[in-house]
């Protein structure tokens, strides 16, 4: 079983409140912190799709507020817990939009892609080289069967790819949907490994 590390460095939530939050998010099924990580991932993606500059911070702020409400009220009637997290996230989003309108000139929120293209090219070459080394390293860390699965799942294009995935699912005795989720998890772990590796170098 994998060990989940929950990093709450920036949180104002105490240990007890955090444990209470984890239990509430689990909704009766002990996920060993996985549910918390999953909801946080969804919130980060939500804020990111709304083009907020710091989606991770907003996701943590959302979960901190939920935790405080839980602490003050004892219980939250809204079910499932993810629905209440979304309600709070909307408030956090509104406030962040409002704060940015007040404090940040619009020009500064433009994507970084507007930077000098020639400078970007040099950075990209360098970054791509690092990514290559990290990707090789991370692929080698996967179990052989996982490495084979990810290679087979993502190779080819269009029609061939669909046929190959169907064969893979049949071979593993699982549905196409289950196969897609399994490979997404592998890809996500690979992506996280590459990001961590790049930060170290």
């Amino acid at each position, binding site marked *: 079983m994998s060990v989940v590390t929950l990093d709450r460095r920036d949180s104002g939530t105490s240990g007890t409140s955090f444990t209470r939050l984890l239990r509430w998010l689990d909704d009766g099924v002990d996920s060993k912190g996985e549910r918390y990580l*999953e909801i946080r991932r*969804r*919130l*980060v*993606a*939500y804020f*990111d*799709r709304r083009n907020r500059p710091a*989606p991770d911070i907003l996701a943590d702020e959302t979960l901190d*507020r939920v935790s405080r*409400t839980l602490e003050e*009220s*004892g*219980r*939250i*009637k*809204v079910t*499932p817990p*993810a*629905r*209440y*997290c*979304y*309600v*709070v996230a*909307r*408030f956090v*989003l*509104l*406030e962040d939009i*409002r704060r940015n309108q007040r404090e940040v000139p*619009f020009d500064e929120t*433009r*994507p970084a*892609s*507007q930077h000098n*293209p020639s400078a*970007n*090219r040099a950075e*990209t*070459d360098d970054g*791509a*080289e690092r*990514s*290559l080394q990290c*990707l*090789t390293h991370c*692929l080698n860390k996967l179990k052989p069967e996982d490495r084979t699965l*990810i*290679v087979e799942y*993502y*190779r080819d*294009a*269009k029609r061939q790819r669909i046929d190959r995935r169907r064969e893979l699912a049949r071979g593993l005795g699982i549905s196409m*949907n289950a196969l897609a*989720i399994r490979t*997404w998890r592998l*890809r996500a772990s690979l*992506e996280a490994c*590459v990001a961590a590796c790049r930060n170290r170098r």
Partner: protein
Amino acid sequence: MPPTPPISDDHLIRYLLGALPADEVERLDERTVVDDELAERLRVVEDDLVDSYAAGTLTGERLQRFETFYLASPRRRSKAAFAKGLRAAIDRSTHQPRPVQNRATQPARQIWHASWWPLAAAAVLILAIGVLFLQNFTLRRELRETARHMADASQRATTAAQQLEVEQAATAAAKQALVDARSAPALAVVALVLLPQTRGVTSVSIVAVPPGASALPLNLRLESPGGTSYDVALRDPASNRTIWRSRSLAPERVRQIPMVPVSLPTGLLKAQHYALDLFELRPGSAPDFVSSYAFEVVRQ
């Protein structure tokens, strides 16, 4: 609860590319946080979309939206870069020779004497090292190619930025319209109805408080009636601090719709966002949170 209609992959792609109307975006925002199955499907669809971009198979409006909308976030740009690297690595691994499946070596292996085993192992090791060197060389070449593609994409993104400037001008016009709307004559503040906040970032009620008013009457619409007694907490969302709490309130029906009437002291209200948290009161147990109602106060 009625069953939610299925959502096609195409619809999810349009969601990811910012091509859906605002109310539909908000509906999907909620579902992608709350609905486990949809959250997982969205990730798979997103990965496939990013892979298509990495493979150069996106065209037309989708390509344009991908570059102008999707790549606007550093996190998503990083996903696209990862997809390109992964693609290069997978192409490389599917084109390299596979030593363990080399049939030519198998008959020979059958006649090897046991004392030849270390020699055979050394040969396999040398072969594997050779493959690794070859693989490393090929991968580096493909990566340089990928980097060139990414730089081209960056150039296209610069063009897209110019289009953004046009949109920026439109945003400024919209802001001005909002300012005009807020400075319009005051709305009646008598028993304004607030709806529970489940979605709709753009649907926050704006309440104009006229000078001299001492109380702001509001009706909080109940999604599921049943309680006999409620109370309401006025919260400042910025600090998440409760700044006022009502006494016990009884629900009423206004035109057959169940509501909880509450009157807020206007002296506490500044020009900002607020949240009203509604709790159901039951004898012998802690108050049960029912729903939140968002509104923005505009002072006149």
